[in-house]
C-alpha cells in the first residue's frame, strides 16, 4: 500500500516536472541553440537582441529581410524588447551566461556604449576591425573613438528643438536664446521627465554641461558632480516658465503630444521620432525642427557581437554587422528611421544630404557613464518637486 503510494507520488512529480520543463522550454526557446547549427547545416540561425522605440523595431523588420535575401544561408531572428521593458535584462543575461560559461543565445546585440564598456572587463564582446568587418572603413573615424572596437556605431540620433512655426517666429540659435525664449513665453515650453526618455534627459544634460568645459562630458569621476550646481540652478529658475509651471510629461512621446495638440509651442525631441511623426502627419504640418549651437546631446546606437558564439554564428553575425554599414542600409536609416547615418555623409546621395540639412548639425556625446543615473536622481529630488 505504502509502496504504491510512493510510486504514485513519484510518477506524479515526474509528470509535473516534465510539464514544467515543457513550459519553461516554450518560455525561452531561444536559449536552446547549442548545437543547433549542426542539425541545420544549410542555415545558420542568429538572434539579434534590440531595444528602443517602435521606429527601431520597424527599422529592423525592414533591414532583416533585405539581409536574408542577400545571404540565403543566414536566418536572423529579431528579439525586440520595447523600451523600458528590460534592455537591461539582455546585459544581465550575457553576464550570467558568461559566468556559467554557456551560450547566452544572444548573437548580435544592439545597445549603448556603456554596455560595451561594462562588458570589457569580462571580455563579453568580440573585437571588431576592418579585418573581419570590412565596412568599418566607412565610419567617421571620430565616432569609433572610445569604442575600443568592441561596438560599432552604425547609426545615431540627436535631440533637436521641435517647434510650432506658426507661433514661434524668433527661433533660438543658442541655449541662452532658448532660455530667454522660455522666460518670455511662459507655459509654452516643456521637456519630458528625464528619467523616462532621452529627449528630456538630453535637455537636462546639455543645460548642465553647457556650464562646464567641453571635455567635462567625458569625465566619469564622481568629483564632477559638485560642478552641476550651476546647471541645476538654471533648471530651477526655468521651472516657473515651463508648461503648467513645471510639469514634465512622461516619455519622449509625452512632450510631442503636447506639441501636437497645441498646449505648448516648443519641445526638445529626438530628431528621428519627430521626423517620422511629421512624415506620418501625427505632428501638425507647421512643426519644424532646429538644432541649436552648441547642440543637444545625441548618440549613436551600437551593434556588438557577443564573444560566446561558435564559428558559424560568429561569421554570420559579422556579416550582418558589415551589412548594416552599407550605404543601402544607411539609406533606410535616414529615410525610414529619420536617423543619422553611421557612415560618412559623403558616401550617401547628395539629395539625401540636402533633405536632412536642418538636423544634420553636430550633436554632442555624453559619456559620463553611471553619472547619468546620478544626474537623474538629483533631478528627481531637486527639480521634480
Amino acid at each position: 500500500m505504502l509502496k504504491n503510494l510512493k510510486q504514485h507520488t513519484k510518477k506524479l512529480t515526474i509528470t509535473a516536472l516534465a510539464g514544467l520543463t515543457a513550459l519553461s522550454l516554450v518560455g525561452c526557446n531561444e536559449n536552446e541553440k547549442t548545437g543547433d547549427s549542426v542539425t541545420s547545416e544549410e542555415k545558420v540561425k542568429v538572434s539579434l537582441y534590440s531595444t528602443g522605440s517602435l521606429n527601431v523595431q520597424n527599422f529592423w523588420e525592414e533591414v532583416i529581410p533585405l539581409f536574408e535575401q542577400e545571404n540565403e544561408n543566414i536566418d536572423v531572428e529579431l528579439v525586440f524588447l520595447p523600451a523600458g521593458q528590460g534592455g537591461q535584462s539582455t546585459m544581465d543575461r550575457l553576464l550570467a551566461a558568461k559566468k556559467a560559461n554557456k551560450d547566452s543565445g544572444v548573437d548580435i546585440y544592439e545597445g549603448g556604449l556603456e554596455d560595451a564598456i561594462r562588458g570589457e572587463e569580462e571580455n563579453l564582446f568580440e573585437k571588431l576591425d576592418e579585418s573581419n568587418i570590412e565596412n568599418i572603413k566607412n565610419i567617421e573615424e571620430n565616432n569609433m573613438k572610445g569604442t575600443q572596437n568592441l561596438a560599432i556605431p552604425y547609426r545615431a540620433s540627436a535631440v533637436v528643438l521641435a517647434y510650432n512655426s506658426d507661433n514661434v517666429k524668433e527661433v533660438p540659435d543658442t541655449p541662452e536664446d532658448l532660455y530667454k525664449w522660455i522666460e518670455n513665453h511662459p507655459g509654452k515650453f516643456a521637456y519630458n521627465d528625464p528619467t523616462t526618455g532621452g529627449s528630456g534627459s538630453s535637455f537636462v544634460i546639455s543645460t548642465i554641461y553647457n556650464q562646464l568645459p567641453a571635455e567635462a562630458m567625458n569625465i566619469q569621476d564622481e568629483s564632477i558632480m559638485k560642478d552641476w550646481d550651476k546647471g541645476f540652478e538654471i533648471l530651477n529658475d526655468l521651472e516657473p516658465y515651463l508648461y503648467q509651471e513645471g510639469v514634465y510629461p512622461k516619455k519622449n512621446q509625452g512632450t510631442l503630444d503636447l506639441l501636437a495638440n497645441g498646449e505648448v509651442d516648443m519641445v526638445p525631441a529626438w530628431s528621428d521620432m519627430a521626423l517620422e511623426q511629421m512624415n506620418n502627419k501625427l505632428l501638425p504640418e507647421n512643426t519644424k525642427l532646429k538644432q541649436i549651437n552648441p547642440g543637444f546631446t545625441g548618440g549613436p546606437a551600437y551593434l556588438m557581437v557577443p564573444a560566446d558564439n561558435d564559428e558559424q554564428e560568429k561569421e554570420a553575425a559579422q556579416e550582418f554587422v558589415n551589412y548594416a554599414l552599407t550605404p543601402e542600409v544607411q539609406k533606410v536609416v535616414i529615410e525610414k528611421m529619420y536617423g543619422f547615418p553611421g557612415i560618412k555623409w559623403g558616401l550617401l546621395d547628395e539629395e539625401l544630404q540636402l533633405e536632412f540639412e536642418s538636423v544634420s548639425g553636430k550633436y554632442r556625446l555624453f559619456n559620463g557613464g553611471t553619472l547619468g543615473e546620478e544626474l537623474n536622481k538629483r533631478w528627481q529630488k531637486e527639480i521634480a518637486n
Partner: protein
Amino acid sequence: MIAKKQKLLGIAMVLPSFLSLIILVVWPVFISIKQSFQNEENQFTWDNYKYVLTDPMMVNNFKYTMLVTLISCVLVLIISYALAAYLRFSNSWFSKVISRLYFIPMFIPGIIAIYGFINMYRDNGWIARFIGSENMPSFVYDIKGLVLMNLWFNIPFTTMLLLSALSAIPGSVIESARDVGAKKLTIFFKFILPLSYNTLLVALTFAFMGIVGSFTAPYLIDKNAPQMLGVSMQQHFSVYHELGQSSSIAVILFLMCAVVGFIYIKNMMKNESHS
C-alpha cells in the same frame, strides 16, 4: 484504497496551482525580500530600508501615496455606496438603465481609458473646449486627475460588490424596521450600514490594494513629484538600476497591503460568530 486514490487525485488537482503559486509568487517575493537586504556586493545591509524610510524624497512619496490612496478610497466607497443604494432601492427606469451601464468601465482597457481621460480633461481637452479653457481647472498632471482616474477604475467593481451586499439584505428586514418605527436615517445607520459593513470592508481592501500599488495611471497622469510608490519603485528599478532600493519599496508596499489585509481578516473572524 479508494480513499487513498481520492486523496492522491486531490493532491494532483491542487498541485498545478500550488506549484505555480510557488514559482510565480512565493519565489519572486522571497527574492525581492532578499534583495531588499543586499547592497551591490550582495552583502547584508539595512541601507536600502534606511534610504527608503528616511530620505526626504521617499518620505514625501510615501506620504503622498497614502494621501492619494486614502482620498481615492474614501471617495470610491462613498460614491459606490450611494450608487449601489440607489440601484438597490429605486425602481425607476433611470436606475434600471444605470444598473446596466455602470460596470462598462471594467471592460475598457486601462491604458485606453487613461488616454481617453487625458484627452477629455487636459487643459485644452474636450471639456475645456466646451466650457472655455480659462474656466478649466487642471486635472492632468495633478492629483485631482489621478484621483478621478482611480474613481473610474474602482467604482464599477466596488459598486458591484456593494450592490450584491445590499441586494442580500432582505426587504423584510427593512420593512420590519419601519414597522417598529425607524425612520429613513435610522434604517440606514442601524440596519443597512451594519448589514453591509463587512462587504464595505472587503471593498475597501480591494480598492486600497489596487490604488496603493498602481503604476500606469499615476505614471501617465500625475505630476513628477512627489510620486506614488509604484512609480518611484519603477524609477529606482529601471532608471537608477537600484535593485535593493526598489526591492525595499516593494516590500514596504507589500507590508502596507498586509496591514490592510490583516485588519480585514481580523474583522471577518470577529464577525464569523454572529452570522
